């Protein structure tokens, strides 16, 4: 597996240098990516982070209307408390900071440790766990946080920008998480640079169902099938967990190695499925947003939105990965 890197050990640092060079709106310091212009004082700060390899998540969502800072860990490895702490300190503008955490043991633990270290600052936290492929249970690690993280960051970011207090921002973030579900399908494995070969082998005629965003194999394997069928499998899983109705925010997300033309093919099927259930695609996103290195495949994320959430989704955002309204 060939990669455009200098060395496996320097991928994250090199990519962050590239981000800094490409986006004057960002500053990169000590593996923390932050806005070069801090947001207005008195607004809630937003910090997210997690392993690298999911670009543009999270660093690509730093900017007006979304995050104040992101702390990218090594590839697929959550950031460390120091990093999170530094990001949190930057994001503090006098109204407290919300940590947006994807539900993985490593992410949860490291953000918890960082929050503990942050004495004298108000830190709230929301854990995103939207992946319906994993059965939820008190006795397990629970569901993974995947595509809906983008929804949470966008909506909470808009609310924070409007000056809402920390509690409201946290509640909205939780609400978006609670209203969202995702399911992923892989055509190929990704390759972790340090590992140097694909994480799993997948025969030419098979696909993985219920994958996460760390190159891990899915819950099961099946024969490859037309986009229509694969979209149906994903949407059945989503709909079976949270029946589709009303207005939906729908994202068809590429896993990193799948070109846009294929994602649009999948989106056409997903949109048809939604219509078939009597629901409506109120807003949508098609592209590579929450990726898993160079894995080929897609995930679909759905959020049941109301007028307020749609308004927050539509609010201006200016980040490298998501931009509109300014």
């Amino acid at each position, binding site marked *: 597996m060939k990669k455009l890197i200098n060395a496996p050990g320097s991928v994250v640092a090199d990519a962050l240098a590239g981000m800094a060079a490409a986006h004057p709106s960002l500053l990169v310091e000590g593996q923390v990516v932050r806005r070069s212009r801090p947001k207005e004082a008195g607004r809630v700060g937003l910090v997210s982070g997690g392993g690298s390899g999911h670009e543009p998540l999270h660093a690509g969502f730093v900017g007006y209307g979304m995050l104040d800072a992101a702390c990218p860990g090594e590839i697929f490895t*959550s950031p460390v408390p120091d990093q999170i702490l530094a990001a949190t300190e930057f994001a503090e503008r006098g109204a407290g900071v919300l940590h947006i955490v994807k539900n993985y043991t490593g992410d949860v633990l490291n953000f918890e*440790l960082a929050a503990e270290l942050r004495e004298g600052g108000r830190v709230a936290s929301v854990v995103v766990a939207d992946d319906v492929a994993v059965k939820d249970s008190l006795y397990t690690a629970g569901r993974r946080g995947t595509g809906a993280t983008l929804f949470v960051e966008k909506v909470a970011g808009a609310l924070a920008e409007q000056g809402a207090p920390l509690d409201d921002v946290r509640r909205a973030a939780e609400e978006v998480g609670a209203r969202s579900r995702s399911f992923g399908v892989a055509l190929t494995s990704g390759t972790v640079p340090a590992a140097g070969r694909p994480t799993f082998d997948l025969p030419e005629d098979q696909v993985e169902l219920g994958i996460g965003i760390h190159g891990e194999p899915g*819950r099961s394997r099946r024969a490859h099938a037309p986009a229509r069928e694969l979209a149906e499998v994903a949407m059945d899983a989503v709909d079976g967990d949270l029946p589709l109705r009303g207005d939906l925010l729908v994202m068809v997300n590429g896993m990193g190695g799948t070109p846009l033309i294929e994602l649009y093919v999948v989106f056409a099927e997903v949109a048809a499925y939604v219509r078939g259930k009597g629901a409506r695609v109120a807003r949508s996103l098609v592209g590579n947003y929450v990726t898993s290195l160079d894995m080929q495949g897609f995930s679909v994320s759905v959020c049941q939105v109301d007028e307020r959430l749609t308004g927050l989704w539509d609010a201006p955002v200016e980040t490298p990965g998501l931009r509109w309204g300014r």
Partner: protein
Amino acid sequence: MRAGFPAAWLAECARVVAAERERLTALDAAIGDADHGANLDRGFAEVRRALAAAPEADALVTAGTTLIRKVGGASGPLYGSLLRAMGAALGAQASPAEFAAAFTTGVEAVARLGRSAEGDKTMLDALWPAARALTDATGPQAPSGLPAPPGLSGSLEFPEISRLSAAEVFGRAATAARAGAAATVPMLARKGRASYLGERSVGHEDPGAASSALLVGALETVADEWGGG
């Protein structure tokens, strides 16, 4: 226990983790995200640097803090907490039983932080058996269920009193840890990334359990360093 024993152990941990890095990553590739070997190798390299920079400091606490601060992922905080809690519980001098108790405190810290228990298919499935083996081998009942001679319980050192040498004690712990790691193969994961695989987690050894077996095995390797007093 000699004062230098923890540092010797940690140096051996760094060596063995580097040597077994690929195997650990391969295990993680099967049921996780293919980074466990890289994570620990990076972490213990940092530990080595940190210990060299601050030779005076408590080696275990320094190492634990370093893992927490440098590794990330699940294993960073978990192994970091293990070593920190263990270091906090262990005096500069310690008897075998005190060492066993400190190790157990460390494992408890992992369980607390990870909200996990034996049988979840995690590092705890190697760490708990090792803790029990250490306790058994050094406690009043040691080595084999016979009552310990009065007055000869855990506050004294191996070479003089205990009926088991340091090598034997750590050997039992290492065997228990390896058996514990092997026992994760048929388990259904309830914690960590492997839990996302459901039934497909069955049939694979947990990478964290495998690395725990290496760390406990390192105790046996450096048993000579235990010293006499």
